């Protein structure tokens, strides 16, 4: 089965093939280099007029893409490391996200910005962050993240060619090497997937007692949660239900609510810093939506609120691990609010 990297490469190729208004912009994306993470391999050779290598100007290339999108093209911008998203924040916040609304729906901005986030490679404080939380909740921008339970290829194709709103496509560096999961290999887990361009996946133990905790996560953390689920089930006899979201913002909590109504407990997992993170919002929304009697435990697994050190050992201590997820899940199931 293909790895996520191959899926993304295929998604870009398919988008270029399907739609001649698609243009790719990014730094170092031309062949033979094909991008810092090789996502662009083969594309500039095949589509020389539509793959544009740019100077190191994150703000300008985002603004350029905004202008191109306003005038009928479908640009895809790569920001080489998610840490560099800070450089294009004004263009996203004050231009891209606002054009459709403040211009009274007279325009559309069908652009995609894709970027790899994440640590665990020892790259240090400015090349390891998961700072997508700073993009969540901006009205007018969709933030999505692929995972191995769905088709990243299809998700990227849809984001580029079908989604007419601005979309930020958050990838995780460690996800690139992971294989897309074959549902047949998950025999003890039932996998339900919602419809839409950015499907939510629900993982439930088949033929097991009623689940007593819901674990919500996205992107690479689904890998860690899947491992934690097994440990919780086989070593602790705690059966969890996992909800893997692909769309981080705007937040659609229905699948999470459905699960929490069954389990009465919610644990959120993210690699970003704990404070003001994705988990905070998800838990707040669930608390707002459910009567207090329906919720018996909440927990958050996230990185500590510190820069990420370069030393791998320190990095591992700071970032969420499978064991962290297991421990917090145990605490959450034992506690009662």
């Amino acid at each position: 089965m293909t790895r996520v990297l191959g899926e993304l490469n295929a998604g870009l190729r398919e988008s270029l093939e399907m739609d001649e208004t698609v243009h790719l912009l990014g730094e170092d994306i031309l062949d033979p280099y094909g991008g810092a993470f090789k996502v662009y391999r083969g594309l500039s050779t095949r589509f020389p007029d539509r793959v544009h290598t740019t100077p190191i100007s994150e703000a300008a290339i985002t603004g350029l893409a905004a202008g191109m999108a306003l005038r009928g093209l479908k640009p895809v911008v790569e920001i080489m490391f998610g840490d560099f998203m800070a450089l294009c924040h004004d263009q996203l916040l004050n231009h891209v996200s606002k054009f459709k609304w403040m211009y009274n729906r007279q325009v559309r901005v069908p652009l995609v910005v894709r970027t790899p986030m994440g640590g665990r490679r020892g790259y240090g404080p400015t090349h390891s962050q998961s700072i997508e939380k700073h993009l969540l909740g901006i009205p007018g921008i969709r933030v999505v993240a692929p995972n191995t339970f769905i088709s990243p290829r299809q998700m990227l194709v849809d984001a580029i060619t079908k989604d007419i709103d601005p979309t930020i496509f958050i990838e995780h560096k460690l996800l690139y090497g992971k294989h897309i999961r074959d549902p047949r290999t998950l025999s003890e887990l039932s996998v339900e997937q919602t419809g839409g361009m950015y499907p939510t996946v629900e993982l439930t133990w088949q033929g097991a007692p009623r689940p007593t905790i819901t674990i919500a996560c996205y992107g690479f953390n689904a890998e860690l949660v899947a491992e934690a689920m097994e440990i919780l089930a086989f070593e602790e006899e705690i059966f969890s239900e996992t909800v893997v979201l692909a769309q981080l913002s705007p937040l659609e909590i229905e699948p999470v609510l459905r699960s929490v109504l069954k389990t009465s407990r919610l644990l959120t997992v993210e690699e970003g810093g704990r404070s003001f993170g994705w988990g905070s919002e998800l838990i707040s929304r669930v608390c707002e939506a459910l009567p207090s009697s329906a919720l018996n435990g909440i927990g958050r697994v996230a990185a500590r609120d510190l820069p990420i050190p370069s030393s791998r050992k320190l990095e591992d201590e700071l970032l969420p691990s499978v064991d962290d997820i297991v421990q917090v899940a145990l605490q959450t199931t034992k506690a009662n609010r």
Partner: protein
Amino acid sequence: MSSSGQTQLTESQSQRLREQFVQMIEIRLFEEKILHEFPTGKLFGTTHTCIGQEANAVGILSAARRDDVVFSNHRGHGHFLAHGGDMKGLFAELMGKETGVCGGLGGSQHLQWNNFYSNGILGGAVPCATGIAMAEKIKKSGAISIVFMGDGTLGEGVVYESLNIASLWKLPMLYVVENNRYAQSTPIELNLAGSITARFEAFGIPAVELNTTEVGIIHESARGLIDEVRRLQEPRCLVVETYRFSPHSKGDDSRDPEEIAHYRQYDPLLMLNDVLSEKERSELATAAEKKVLEAFRQAEGDPYRQVDEGVQTSLEPEN
């Protein structure tokens, strides 16, 4: 500031200058009306008028095609009107009426109509406009992209990122700098090092600098540059030394009144005294005044934009 002596004009040149006078005086009276009405509470927020700078908008945009794409800034009413924008729609927009250019949602600094865009983040328009040039080049539409900046805008880094790309990729872009010597309250001596034109030339973008309020001269210069941009598919820059008689926004003006009085001698409207008779100017001014007042009156009568319109104001994704 320079002013040319009387030259022999052809009929078509005279006619064009007459039309340009009309455009300029309409902008002038529109802006004066705005400043006059703000204290009455009929207009929301703030505004940045271009009184004194009308020749730039009119001279340059009368040399552009209607399908050329203009990106302006906070001081954009003149650019909007000169590129064919509707006066009543602009009044209504400032009043927050549903008949406004952007249905009352954008206001003075956030306009979109036809091939006109504006946004209130200084410098932020420059990469967008550069991307617009890229799109028009790719689409082979023949249209060019024009962005209006001020001297203050040259403080923003993203401007230089854009110049580099426009030159590298040979984009059909005209960068216009209206140097009115002040960025809000700050005179240019405290803001700008080096030369404005040299900034563009450093990126390989030829730049022309004008020091005039004569609309005819600005028009000729713009026409030549726009033609080059369109024909050669390359960026160009036009710097116009200019002066605004109005405050930065509504009442904030700490400039020396003598300095302002000095520049009023070069009011772009006065610069056509040799071309149009006093009688003609008076008639055109009266007609313009009538048009402005009528547009204002109509806008006043329109309903306010309601916020609870579900889909219209929702930012939920469409699909």
